[in-house]
């Protein structure tokens, strides 16, 4: 990672998130492709790749922690240098616009510039974990993700967690959902959506 991208990441948490997501996704896709070559069908290939990767959320959290630790140091350094060289006023005018995560992200919201809502085509229900079932955990997990023009969800982010195991199941199943992408001026575009998954016990 260059010093420039380190400095930029200080002000753009979503950029870091996107990079982590891209890296993990690339790995999974490589593994899925390999599994397919070895004769598995698509569902099997995806499931095996996910199983082998293990806990995606935990791994990403660890990657994030490594980066954030350094980011704080770089951030403090950047702040010091900037104050020294340019003065507090300029720092504020610089930091404010870049602090908007929306600028780093490339997606639309529904309704913005006439963008239409992505339509759910294929849904996979999340599974209960034995632990959550035993502990009788029930409720909803709310996630945000970007439905890409390809119809898959990327950059899944849990906005309202419920239980570590169930959050993971929810995110995993969301990755298998397929959408008809949202459109702007008749062309498919990435659109931010909020997804709610309920876990109920009877």
């Amino acid at each position, binding site marked *: *990672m*260059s010093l420039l991208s380190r400095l930029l990441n200080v002000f753009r948490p979503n950029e870091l998130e996107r*990079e982590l997501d*891209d*890296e*993990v996704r*690339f*790995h999974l*896709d*490589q*593994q899925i*492709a390999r599994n397919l070559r070895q004769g598995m069908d698509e569902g099997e290939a995806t499931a095996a790749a996910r199983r*082998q*990767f*293990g*806990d995606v959320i*935990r*791994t990403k959290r*660890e*990657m994030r*922690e*490594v*980066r954030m*630790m*350094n980011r704080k140091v770089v951030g403090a350094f950047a702040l010091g240098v900037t104050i020294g060289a340019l003065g507090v006023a300029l720092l504020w005018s610089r930091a404010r616009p870049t602090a908007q995560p929306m600028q780093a992200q490339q997606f639309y919201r529904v309704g913005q510039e006439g963008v239409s809502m992505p339509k759910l085509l294929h849904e996979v229900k999340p599974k209960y974990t034995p632990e959550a079932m035993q502990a009788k955990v029930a409720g909803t997990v709310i996630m945000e993700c970007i439905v890409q023009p390809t119809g898959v969800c990327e950059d899944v982010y849990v906005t309202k967690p419920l239980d570590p195991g169930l959050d993971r199941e929810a995110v995993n199943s969301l990755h298998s959902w397929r959408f008809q992408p949202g459109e702007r001026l008749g062309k498919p575009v990435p659109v931010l959506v909020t997804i709610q998954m309920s876990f109920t016990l009877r």
Partner: protein
Amino acid sequence: MGKSADNLLGTLDLLVLRTLSAGERLHGYSIAERIHQRSEDVLRVEEGSLYPALHRMDEARWIKSSWGLSDNNRRARYYEITKAGRRRLARLEQDWARHVAAVTRVIKLA
């Protein structure tokens, strides 16, 4: 599948740095694949340890990362070894050899 190569005594760092030491730029997937192949399927680096380790070593400047296009035209993060990484590798190789020799001596004596 084989045993998982955790980072006991810096083993994982050693394996990753050694894999990159030819000077090639590799993404995480092929680093894992090569370790698996070269160990003749004995060692399997778990992704859950590999990626945090890559990021940690990147922050330590033993390796550096950059985004590029993969064979199948996908955006992928590539890693390559740095000068500091080569120094680190030499050190880890020494430690490893010393450790193996010590364990061997204990086994023989026991």
